[in-house]
């Protein structure tokens, strides 16, 4: 989710105030509702210039969708990853602002989002205790599902906190998601994947990039080829790398300035600096 983009779209002439209290949901959910009702995707898209994922290659990938029956359309607003049989790791900004657990469902086991997998209800949403906004870091949340999802999906291991070799500059990483691939269109049907490289926070804090806005709980990934990036709809999805021979999640799609712009790299929650996520998965009493 590119939060700066969303802000840029709000016109100064528009003031929405007062009235009966509308239901509060996160901005990605609000945007998904607009898309479902009007066909207009109001924020920029996600995996740009990626490739189609092969079915079964990313069994931990899940989709966060608006609630509905098994036969109703799956309206995507974010991604996530299965990190335990009943836990999904996603971005906090996907489920913030007091979003209730009944305002979303999780699709597990899908590559073709229109056809594969099954919906799971969410029992509880846990935001990182110090999360305020994506730009301020700590942009992770855990969703507790109401039932075991492993019959359809597979759990991805999380990188250990402090294992800084895994997200060292130059490391190869992979992001996945169903976000749209062109400006203004909706999410895609088939899961897409893109290989990127980790940048140092010094590179990402260059004046032409994010000019000091990248904190210790964030990590940037990009590609020499301009235009390869993640974007809206991919938020919350996993950034994975090969660690000691196994694909391991090292980040969560978080934010960036628009999508695919030169020098505006994708920003991810850095799991090696967020031990809360690992602790919460290991022992829910510590969440």
């Amino acid at each position, binding site marked *: 989710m590119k939060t700066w983009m969303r802000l840029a779209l709000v016109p*100064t*002439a528009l*003031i*929405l105030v007062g*009235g009966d209290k509308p239901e509060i949901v996160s901005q990605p959910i609000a945007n998904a509702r607009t898309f479902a009702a009007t066909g*207009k995707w109001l924020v920029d898209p996600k995996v740009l210039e990626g490739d189609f994922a092969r079915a079964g290659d990313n069994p931990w990938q899940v989709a966060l969708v608006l609630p509905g029956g098994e036969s109703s359309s799956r309206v995507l607003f974010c991604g996530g990853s299965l990190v335990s049989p009943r836990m999904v790791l996603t971005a906090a900004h996907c489920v913030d602002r007091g979003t209730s657990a009944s305002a979303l469902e999780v699709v597990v086991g899908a590559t073709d989002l229109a056809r594969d997998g099954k919906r799971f209800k969410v029992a509880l949403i846990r935001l990182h205790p110090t999360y305020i906004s994506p730009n301020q870091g700590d942009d992770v949340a855990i969703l507790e599902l109401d039932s075991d999802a492993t019959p359809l999906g597979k759990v991805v291991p999380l990188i250990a906190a402090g294992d800084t070799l895994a997200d060292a500059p130059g490391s190869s990483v992979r992001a996945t998601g169903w976000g749209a691939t062109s400006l203004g269109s909706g999410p895609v049907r088939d899961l897409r994947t893109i290989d990127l490289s980790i940048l140092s926070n010094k590179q990402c804090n260059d004046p*032409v990039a994010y000019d000091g806005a990248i904190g210790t709980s964030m990590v940037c990934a990009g590609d*020499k080829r301009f235009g390869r990036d993640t974007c809206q709809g991919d938020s919350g999805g996993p950034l994975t790398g090969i660690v000691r021979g196994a694909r391991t999640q090292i980040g969560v799609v978080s934010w960036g300035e628009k999508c695919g712009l*030169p020098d505006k790299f994708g920003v991810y929650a850095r799991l090696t600096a967020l031990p809360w996520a690992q602790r919460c998965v290991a022992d829910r009493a510590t969440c």
Partner: protein
Amino acid sequence: MQRWNFPAACLLTLVATPLCAQLPPPPDWSLEVKRPARRALVIGIASYDNARQLITPRMDAEQFAQTLTALNFNTVDRASIDGRSERSILLAKIAAFKAKLEPGDLAVVYYSGHGVQVNGINYLVGSDGTAKPEYPGLDWISVDYVIGEIAKAKAAVTVLVLDACRADPFTGTADDDRDIFDATTAGPLATAGVQGLAPAGGPLGPFVIAFAAQPRMVAYSRTSTDPLTTSSIYTRHLASRLVRNAPLGRALAGVDTDVAGATDGRQKPMSSLSQVWDLPMDGLKPESVTTEEEWAFVVSTIPIGQLVAQLTDFVSFHPISVHAAAARAKLAQIAAEPPSVPQPQPQPQLPPPPPPVENTAILLGALQSTRMVDGKVTAVTNSPVSVRERRKGGANFGIVSAGSRVQLLESKGHFARILAPDGRFGWIEGVNTVNREQIKLDVRLGFSSGDEFADANDWTPLGDAARKLSAPSTAVTIRTGRGSVSDVGQSRLVGRVRALRIREYVLRLGVPPERVVVLENDPGVDADEARISVLKVTS
């Protein structure tokens, strides 16, 4: 305040009674006259650690800076005068320039030096730039970054001039003379081993970008007979055109001709003007009479939705007008006003059958058509309106302030479903739609010349239709085509001025302003034509 020029006065003579009335006095808020600041950052880099040295940038920067000073620019910053600026220095200069800019200013950035394009992205190369960086933007400076930084300062218009399309900076020898034009031997420069800059349209918004050469072509620095102390072919011609006091668009068109002529057609500059129609470069040049007339029409516009649309258009057409500050301030004030106006009550009668949205010729009431954008009618709210989940009930999503631009998704009787730009959508009430089938009279005006100085006879059909135009229970739509002058910006301005003059005339006939809709530069109307339609209003 009377600021009529000749064609408007001609219109006034057509129908005696209503037009003898004086224009109402201009509102107080419109009286502020403020000349926007003109600020420039001029960069010339000749000295490079890893690339070919250049001869002309020192002189280019000097000449361009002198030209802008002569045009009464308020400030002209220089990156360096010795022809050397490392990336960090350039970034600091850009940051300092941005900090100096205020909303409403004219910002000009001039660059002479090496430019490189990689994967369609244009970069400026600092003195310490390397040949093949892993991430080009972290070693050079992308033009997009420069544009983006200046955009953050909310300048009224940003002008970026790039005399940077030289041959590949990282190949050849230090004394390479490939980019010196020799009329006896010269061939096209864009061949293997050289790379010009990529095409760039610039971002949305008021913006001008000018290149010394066409996309992916390279530019000559000087001719073989020029002394070493001369500036580049492009810069010297641009400076010459600017000091002749032409608006920027006209000056750039002239430079294209000059440079092509000086290089036997082998170098052709290119420029892109986005939404910039009227850009006088001289800081002391007085406002044109036509612009003053247009401003008088704009400030007298009611209701508020149309005023917002007209002020927005005025700022777009005349971003550095002396009236632009007043227009922007009024727009900001309207946007900030608390929504204190009571909501219109639901109509007691049953709504008529819903017209298809695409057949809606005119919107009246709470939502009003204002102008054509990309061939589609856009609408603004004419008062603060409640947005509800359903037509009659459901959650109240809040209030959209007066003057907000919305998209019409669906229309049912006096209700309309709208999409606000922030993604919220719902139903509003108090909308009155009129179908094209309800047109009672069509008046066609044909203008004998393509500019804004129309002949008095051109207005005759309007005078003949005066009685029907002012009939009760009618609304009037005014649609104008563009002027047939060659300059795109000027042709749109002509269409706009004609529409405003017709609107003023219709209002003087007594038609209520909330029943007059102006759709200027409608692509469905031929150039140098106007269509005035009288429509029957049922409610």
